[in-house]
Every structure is written in C-alpha cells, then in structure tokens.
C-alpha cells in the first residue's frame, strides 16, 4: 500500500506532471511537492509525487555499498 515507484519527470503542467516509468507514461499530481522540474526523479505513490529522489544521496549510498563490497571480497 505504501509502495512508491521511481518515475522520471518529462514535463510539468501546473499542479501535475507527465512522468515515465520504463517508458510508460503516467500523470503525477504535484499537490504534495514543490519545485519539480523536467529531468527530476520523483517517487510516485497512488498518483501523487510524494518526494524527489536526491541524486547525490543515492550516489553516496552506492559509494558506501561498493566500499563494503570491495572490503569483503579482497
């Protein structure tokens, strides 16, 4: 129920955005999220964008994980 899926913002049209998930288009309401721009990734939940995905934080998590992986297989 609380599932949300990463979706890429294509165009923003007032309080709604056109987003894609694996090239399939959806409408995402922006009533819960400000400052959304084309190219952003958002989490889509029940037709609403609930949060942006922070690209820097995502990269940092992966960097830490790769560190664990490198240490464990050395």
């Amino acid at each position, binding site marked *: *129920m609380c599932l949300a899926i990463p979706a890429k913002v294509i165009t923003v049209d007032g309080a709604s955005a056109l987003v894609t998930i694996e090239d399939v288009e959806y409408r995402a309401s922006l009533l819960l999220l400000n400052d959304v721009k084309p190219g952003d990734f958002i989490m889509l939940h029940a037709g609403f964008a609930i*949060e942006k995905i922070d690209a820097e934080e995502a990269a940092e998590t992966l960097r830490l994980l790769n560190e664990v992986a490198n240490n464990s297989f050395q």
Partner: protein
Amino acid sequence: MQYIDEYRKKELILAVSKELKEISKQPITLMEVCGGHTMAIHRFGLHALLPPAIRLISGPGCPVCVSSQHFLDTAIACSKIPGAIITTYGDLIRVPGSVSSLEKEKANGHDIRIIYSVLEAVEMAKVNPDKKIIFLGIGFETTAPATAAAIVEARKANLLNFFVLSAHKVMPPVMKALVDDGIKINGFIAPGHVSAITGTTIYNDLPKRYGLGVVITGFEPVDLMLAILMLVRQFESKDPKVEIQYQRVVHVEGNKIAQALLTKVFELKDDRWRGLGIIPGSGLKIRSAFADFDAEKHFTVHVPEPVDPKGCICGSILRGLKAPNECRLFATVCTPSDPVGACMVSGEGTCATYYKYRS
C-alpha cells in the same frame, strides 16, 4: 531502471550478507513494520542470506489488514445507499466483512469502483453531480496526504457530492503499543515512504524510552540488507538510535507540504485496529471544518455488531506474536483465492506473502 536496478545487484547484496555474518554475534529479533517490506524480504529471499542469529518478524503495516471489521461493515452499508458510488484502492473490496464483502455487493449490482488515485474520485464527483461519491480512505501517513489534498480540491471546486470514509491511521502509536504489549524485539526496520512524509523525529522515543534501534529503509534488497546491517551494528555496540538508510528519499524533516495538508484536514482520534483493539491517537478523522466531506457525519447507516472470522489468527499475526503457518486455516481453508481473513487478501498481507513464497 534507474534507482531500482543498482539496488538489486547481486554482488552488493552478497557483500552485505557476508559482512552481516561476520559481525552478528548475539541473537537479535527485528520487526519489519511495513507490509511492503515483508513482501520484498520474501520476494527476494533475504531470509536465506541472513545468519541464523537474526530473526525477522512481520508487523502491522498493511492498511488493508489492520482496517477493522466495523470499518468494512460500514463501507458495505454505504454501498447500499441509493445513488452512492464507492471508490476504493484495490485489495479492500475482497476483504470479508461480517456478513458480506464489497466484492459481493458489487456482484449484487451496487456501484463499487477500484481507483488508482483519489483524484479520480474527485473527477467522478464533478461529472456525476447526481451521484454520491464515497472514497474509502485507508492507508498510513504515505497515503493520507493524498486524501487530504483531494478534500481541499473538492472544497475549491465547491463539490457537495464527494465524501471520505476515513480509516487512515498513523504509525508511531501502534509501534509503541506493540512494545508496551510486551513484544520481544530489538529493533524496528522502519517504513521508508511513511517516513518520507513524516520525517524521522516521530521515532525518537523508541531508542530513548525503549532502547530500540530504528533504521528507516527502502524496498529494494540492498536497502533492506543494509538496514539490517545497521541495526545489528547498533545492537552489537549497544547504541540504539534512529538512522536513515533510505537517504535518497527520506529527510529528517520529511515532506512539509504533505504534513501541513494532513494537519489542515485531519486530527488524531483513538482508532480500532484489527487484532490490536483501540489504540489512543492512532487514527485520522476529518476536522469539523471539512465535515461536509465526512461520510461518517453525512450518512447514517446501520452497522451490526462486527463478527470476526472464526479460527482466523490475523490479529496475533499483525502483532508479530504468531506466523501464518501456525494458523490451522492457513493454506487449507484460507487461500488468496478464497480468503478468510484480511491478512490473506492484501498482496502485502503477511499470510498472502507467506502463501505466495512458501516452500
């Protein structure tokens, strides 16, 4: 797919698994609160990658499962109101009520429609001014802001025929109630998308008052494995705290727009949970300023005394006290195609998940 594939990489999952096996020394029990987490753990077979000292139990975070029999019976009664169209998220229509289900009422000719977004119900109200559109509001802090936004939109459009029957609930009181109830756990794998809305401070009590670790995590296998690693590290170093693993989505302060909408439209009430009884301050009711959208205030329906399904241990399962295979009905008379209890209905219900991935 970006932000999914990289968190499903086998070498990363195995690396975290190896690290866990090295640092995990004492037995530890962790509860995954969210039904989405239960589903992901089973779907990706994560149990097999954990050392034997780590035990995971499933919690009460499936909204369809915890919605009370009284709520379902009220929804079923509402479906019989002349001119009513019931709108709901999918799974709820299959949950058996005391004497019927929404699915059966639909077969009887009542107008019950599954929608993907609550805004569809608002649109339906606009184009059907002669109908009464009743939306069944279920879900936690992730989903409730959407309902709040829909009510505000309905007010802006001066709609007089859009109503919400709210069974929306909030997470922190039930987590505390389980601990107060005596459940023996060492930490919580906390819900990622609830926390995206609420932020992290709602959990601050848990380490302070109860000595429990809390790690907020995402729904991919790497996220979950990493969260378990963080909880084991906290446990082994006797340093319980609130940490975010899901940093790409969750921030300490949460989504302030969603929080403001929640506060504007809803207030806390004591609410009934399946299997857990009434938990103080755990439900969301519509504020009197928005009473014209409150189905409970607008319609008077007769709801008989709820009857719980005989032999079903859904309540004990939601409290983490029993596993589905301890139920006599599990996979015998209770299956996803003919469910007895709510936990077998929802795709993220503990029983449905155990059934799908049972070995």
